[in-house]
């Protein structure tokens, strides 16, 4: 379909890292089915490096593709590096999304932060990249983020 590029279609048709890690070190959720997309992500962390990440997403083609590519991006990265990943990085990795679909990549970036936040809460660790992050903040802020892209 002409709406998405080949890379997006590949990640949508053959998503990487689908599933849930049992007894994961950190879990995050972002979005809601009422809004049309919800991503759940689970991560394992060893020595401050993300060793595994899996996702489940209810959402459109670009939400699934950005979940897939985002989990690929964080595996093997240190927690601080993963926290630096922005919507823009995810978008670039996907080779771009139609303008109207850009909010779908916000989902993945927020879900990753939520999972790391959960991990930090459980382990009592502090990460500079988490400062000011509130996993429960509402969509008004999401809109503000979108405007910055």
């Amino acid at each position, binding site marked *: *379909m002409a709406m*998405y590029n080949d890379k997006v*279609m590949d990640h*949508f*048709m053959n*998503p990487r890292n*689908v599933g849930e890690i049992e007894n994961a070190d950190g879990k995050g*959720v972002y979005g*809601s*089915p*009422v*809004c*049309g*997309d*919800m*991503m*759940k992500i689970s991560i394992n962390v060893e020595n401050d490096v993300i060793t595994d990440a899996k*996702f*489940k*997403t*209810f*959402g*459109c*083609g670009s*939400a*699934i593709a950005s979940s897939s590519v985002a989990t690929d991006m964080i595996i093997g990265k240190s927690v601080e590096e993963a926290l630096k990943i922005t919507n823009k990085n995810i978008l670039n990795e996907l080779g771009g999304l139609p303008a*109207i*679909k850009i909010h779908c990549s916000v989902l993945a970036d927020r879900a990753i932060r939520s999972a790391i936040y959960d991990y930090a809460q459980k382990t009592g660790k502090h990460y500079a990249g988490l400062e000011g992050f509130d996993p429960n903040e509402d969509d008004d802020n999401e809109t503000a983020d979108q405007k910055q892209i």
Partner: protein
Amino acid sequence: MRQVYLDYSATTPVKEEVLKEMLPYFTKKFGNPSSLYSIAQESKIAVEEARERVASLIGANPGEVFFTSSGTESDNWAVIETARLKKSRGNHIITTKIEHHALLHSCKYLETQGFDVTWLDVDRDGRVEPGDLEAAVTDKTVLISVMFANNEIGTIEPVREIAEIAKKHKITFHTDAVQALGNVPIDVHDLGVDMISVSSHKIYGPKGVGALYIRKGLTLPNLLHGGAQENRKRAGTENLTGIVGFGKAAQLAGLSLSEHIAKTASLRNYFIGEVTARIPDVHVNGGMEHRLPGNANITFEYVEGEALLLLLDMKGIAISTGSACSSASLTPSHVLTAIGVPMEKIHGSLRFTIGDFTTKDDIDYTVNELEKSVTKLRNISSVSKEKGW
């Protein structure tokens, strides 16, 4: 790859017979129907023959049918010009929450021009309750517009009852019959409506041509001003080829109406039967009793419609969805919202519309691919029957 088109409510292919009838009017018989020499008169005759054919399909007199560029133009003309005409008498309009955008946005525009619009609710099946409509009538009501059949869920509205109420209160009644034409028998005089919008490309005619039926004796000011075309009611050189095609399509639709209804309803019922038997957690949206024969609108729980549409498109299957993600405005279907479908289930809704070229093989292929695609997306989904929404 196999191609299966199941979006006949969006548009239809032009039938071969229709195209054949149109072709000479592009090249040899290209004359402007308003001119006076022979080839122009041939064009004029062709337009009038088409008018008779369209009129015949809706039981109208040819003089009551005016060609336009689209169903949208017909809706705009009927609603906006009636409102302007009657503004000194009253500024109240009654319509429904499930109208096509052509009607909905025309009424929204009128709201900005000092009109009050009552947006009637519909029941779970998508039907307007005539009693609710009558209760909404005030001494300021000048126009009622209720669609004949809904484009998303196929609900056929109680047009005759509404027309009676309108007549009783001496209010002009318009109905958008774009989806109903060629799918439901329509007789304007029997129904007692004042205006009906129809369109060619939903009945295997070309795009870019529609018509407005205006009951004889009803006054409707012009929307487009200019030349004397369409009995001075609608200016602009006639879309000659389009009108000829619309006429032929209307003739064919009239000839095969009962056969078309029986065939599409039977395939639609088979499709719904197969889908509900083979795929768990699906719901048909809208009632089955008063429904367009080829329409199936189904929610697949725990998946999102645009993703499902994409997977089916990869298999050559063309359908549409009520999901917000598929719309340019990112708003979910106003029709499914109006019949009370929860938001998360609107996102997982697909519309399948069956037409004259659909075969049982097409349906079997679609059900198979649908089953695979739904399973695939449910495996990826963060929501499920077990875990809930």
